């Protein structure tokens, strides 16, 4: 299991605040399985500042405190990707798409077909097919 400094820190802060996994997940509008995956390093930390701030506040971290800085710094380190990917992953639905692809274990051929589907003319015009 991959270790994650952010995940370890998040779990330590959560337990320090006496929140159970499910209880805290509900508080930050996440599923317990997502929260657990982030804590255990199976998933990257949340990328948007708003989300991280909401979590930090739920953990009663004081802005400007050492804990606050450590929390944001460890999220940032884990998130250090090329700028274009960083921007891409800032959109929740892009993340959902990637996770779906990963969970379904698509083959290379299936991925090519998916890309071809996305590249259809009507999608290139910015229209969805409504399905």
């Amino acid at each position: 299991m991959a270790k994650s400094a952010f995940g370890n820190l998040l779990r330590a802060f959560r337990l320090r605040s006496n929140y159970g996994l499910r209880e805290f997940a509900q508080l930050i509008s996440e599923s317990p399985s997502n929260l657990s995956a982030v804590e255990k390093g199976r998933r990257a930390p949340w990328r948007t500042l708003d989300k991280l701030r909401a979590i930090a506040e739920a953990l009663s971290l004081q802005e400007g405190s050492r804990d606050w800085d450590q929390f944001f710094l460890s999220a940032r380190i884990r998130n250090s990707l090329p700028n274009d990917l960083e921007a891409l992953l800032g959109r929740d639905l892009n993340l959902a798409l990637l996770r779906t692809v990963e969970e379904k274990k698509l083959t290379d051929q299936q991925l090519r077909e998916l890309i071809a589907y996305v590249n259809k003319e009507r999608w290139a015009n910015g229209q969805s097919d409504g399905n």
Partner: protein
Amino acid sequence: MGSPMAISGLVEYSRTELERRAREYLSSRHDIPHMLPIKVELMLDTTPNIVFDTFPGLVVKHGVEGAICTQNGSKDLFVFIDEGIACGHDSARYNAAVGEELAHVRLHGAVLMQVKTIEHFLEIQRHPDWDKSEYDARIFSAAIRMPCHLVEKHARIHYCEIVDSLGFGQTRQIEMAINARLARLFEVPLEDMRRRLMNWPCEVMRRVQMSVLSCSPELTPSDPVKKFMPVFSPQKTLFEEL
């Protein structure tokens, strides 16, 4: 085909022993906030050498709500709760599932340290020797989630309120109302609370019937001879003041 080999190291407990162990365990958890419902999830998550996680498909594929095993020679015990239950809306069911896994860790930890995979765990679950362990875990879990002294305290409060509003004519309704109120307060399934209220050491339902029969506005006290009275240090312990 011969009978399967016995599971080595499996300990069986008496009901009295399970109640005593549960009470001692609650008293030892000074780190858990004093509040209802009892935070079994936090207890499990903060147990040393326990990795608490969710796992997809345990109920659908294997018919179990939780599973426990070691992994890759790790000294940790991995405790998994079905993802659907963890992510679902039924907190009572979730607490029951977590409580039962916590009970297994406390009662059968040594045996579970020999379990290498979830498949191995499922195999042990099907073993006839495991039935008593499941029963023991349910009793221990109930005693953790619904400590007798807290059930007693809140049953008294709610009995007074309920007979005040319903009168003494409807014993069954009074029983059901107490059951529903306490199940909600302790965040446990209705059936779990019903069993707790029926059985020793709480035996609340029997006393509700006695009280209603004699039109008493107070819940009949528990029988001091039959009441579970473990020996503990005199200072106030965790969960006693709730």
